[in-house]
Each structure stands twice: as C-alpha cells, then as structure tokens.
C-alpha cells in the first residue's frame, strides 16, 4: 500500500483534476454570462458546485484513498447542516410574510427602510 510512505499518486492525476476544475468553473461562470434563470440556473449552479467540491475533497485532499472510518467521521457530520438549512428556510419564509403583512402596501407603515446610509450612492 502507498499509505506507508504517505499519499503518493502520479502527477497526471492532479493535472487532470486541475483541468476539470477549470472547465467546471468556466461552466458555472457561463451560467451567469448567458443569463440562465429559474430552476435551470439553480440546478446547474448546484451541480457544478457539488462536482467541484467532490473533486477537491476526493482527489486534492486525498479522501478517496483514506479508510472508510475517516471518510465517514469527516463527511457525515456536516450533513447536520441540512437540518439547519431547512429550519432557517422555514423561519426566513415566515419572517418575510410577517414583514410583508406588517410593513407592506396598505399596512400604513412607510415602506422605506429607516436605516439608509446618508453618504451612500
């Protein structure tokens, strides 16, 4: 096993991944450049993002050559963030509706935000 002497892999592996990351970054930039909108935009952004993240973690950080015990110990805990994402999404939605009904049109409160910077613009 190569692990005794540390992680040793041919240089072509790194150059390949480097090239792939360049291509994927170009793709995600083009998503913005060509003004894709809606679900197409969001899914493309997410797909390219996850592919880039996967390549960096798996190859550059050598995770695919580590033992499963380390892989799971490192990669599973961050999935807890998905719970926080869903909680905060529900909360953000609720705050938006509260604000719209309290400060929106017809509520009698001026819409203008009170804390505009005076020097800005």
């Amino acid at each position, binding site marked *: 096993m190569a692990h005794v002497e540390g992680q040793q892999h041919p240089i072509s592996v790194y150059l390949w991944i480097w090239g792939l990351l360049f291509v994927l970054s170009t793709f995600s930039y083009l998503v*913005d450049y060509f003004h894709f909108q809606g679900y197409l935009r969001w899914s493309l952004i997410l797909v390219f993002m996850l592919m880039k993240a996967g390549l960096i973690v798996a190859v550059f950080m050598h995770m695919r050559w580590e033992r499963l*015990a380390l892989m799971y110990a490192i990669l599973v805990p961050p999935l807890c963030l998905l719970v926080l994402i869903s909680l905060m999404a529900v909360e953000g939605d609720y705050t938006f509706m509260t604000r719209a009904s309290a400060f929106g049109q017809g509520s009698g409160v001026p819409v203008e935000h009170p804390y505009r910077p005076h020097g800005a613009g």
Partner: protein
Amino acid sequence: MTQAIQTDTVEPVPLPEGLQGIVADWSSDQRAFKKVPWGKVMMWIFLVSDTFIFGAFLISYMNVRMSTTDPWPNPSEVFALTLFGEKIPLILIAIMTFILISSSGTMAMAVKFGYEKNKNMTFILLLVTALFGATFVGMQAFEWTKLIVEEGVRPWGNPMGAAQFGSSFFMITGFHGFHVSVGVIFLVITAIKVLRGNLDRQRPGFMTGRKGNYEIVEIMGLYWHFVDLVWVFIFAFFYLW
C-alpha cells in the same frame, strides 16, 4: 516474545475493508484512524469545525436574503467590471476563482514532490501557491475598495437594494479572505522549512517536540484545499445565485 501494542502506521496484518473495516477500526481498542498520521486527522477535525462556521455564515445569508422585503442587488451587475470599454459581468470574481483553483493545483503537486523528498520543487510550488493566494487577497482588496468607495455599499445598507447585502458580503468574504491570508503566511513558513532542509533533518517545529517531516506539507495542503473548497460554495451561493 513480548506482545507489542500497535501504535505506528505500519500494519502487519491486512485491515478489513468496507463496513467491516469501519467496525474493526473503531472497535480495535487502539487508534481509530488507521494508516493516516494523527496530524492529518487533527487538521481534518479542525476543518470540520470550520465547515460549521462557514455553514452558519452561508445559512444566515440565506435566511436574511429570504426574509428581506427589499429587492436583493443583482451580484452579476454589482461585480461587473468595465474592460476595454465593455461591461463584463462578474469577471473579477471569475478570475479570482481561476487563481484560487490554480493555487490548489500547485499545492497538490507540492505535496506530491514533498513525499518524493524533492526539496527544490516542493519549495517552488509552495511559493507559487503562496503567490497565487496573495494575488487572490489583493484582488479581494480591490473588490472591497470598489464596492465601498464607488458603489457605496456599507454593512448597514447600500443604494442598490436590501441592506443585508452588505453585511452578508463583508462577513462571508471577509472571513474567507482572512483564511486565505493566514494560509499564505503558513505557506511561506512551510516553504522556508522545506528550503532550509528542516524536514529532511527531522528538526522539530515551532512549539512542538515532534520531529519534522513532509507530512506537514500535506497537512498544509488540506487547509489550503479547504479554503478553495469554501470559495466554491461562496462563488455558487453568493455570486451566482
């Protein structure tokens, strides 16, 4: 023969793979992470904690962006640059992304040459990585200056729309830029250690009695790739969304 407790990374018996391997590793009554230097495990655990910090920032950004009733400024236009008389959307951020990816590539190769004990190549590649990192921070400083001076973006408001845009932007990119800056400093320190031959002579490092070796290049690399990894998420969620 006395019975020896297995503490180093050399395994006499092949370890089981797959799910059985996980159970065997964790229940071995020894170190749980086999075939990996403990310094690397510690860096990984630090990176997990850092993941939660950046995760909290990005999730709070999601929350304020969802909950604001003001329109969110269009990042594509805010971060556009006029080059050769043409307005190109997001071009500075794209260049910064390519620079950071390139620095990850040179870092990965520095790790490879480090394990081959190729002192000069490791030194040069670490230095190139540090230069890419410094360029990234420089471009970020330019971006901040432009945003503050020309566009009038403040943490408490901006002329383009939702006030939360500024606070999220400065918080997230500021913390990431700080990570890059710290990384550049440690890259230079690691490069100097490599050049002086500290790792070949196994000279103990700063504040430790542990013998120096080329593992520290890989540990440095883990941190640097993580900084690149965080940028992938910031690029997607803040600049492209």
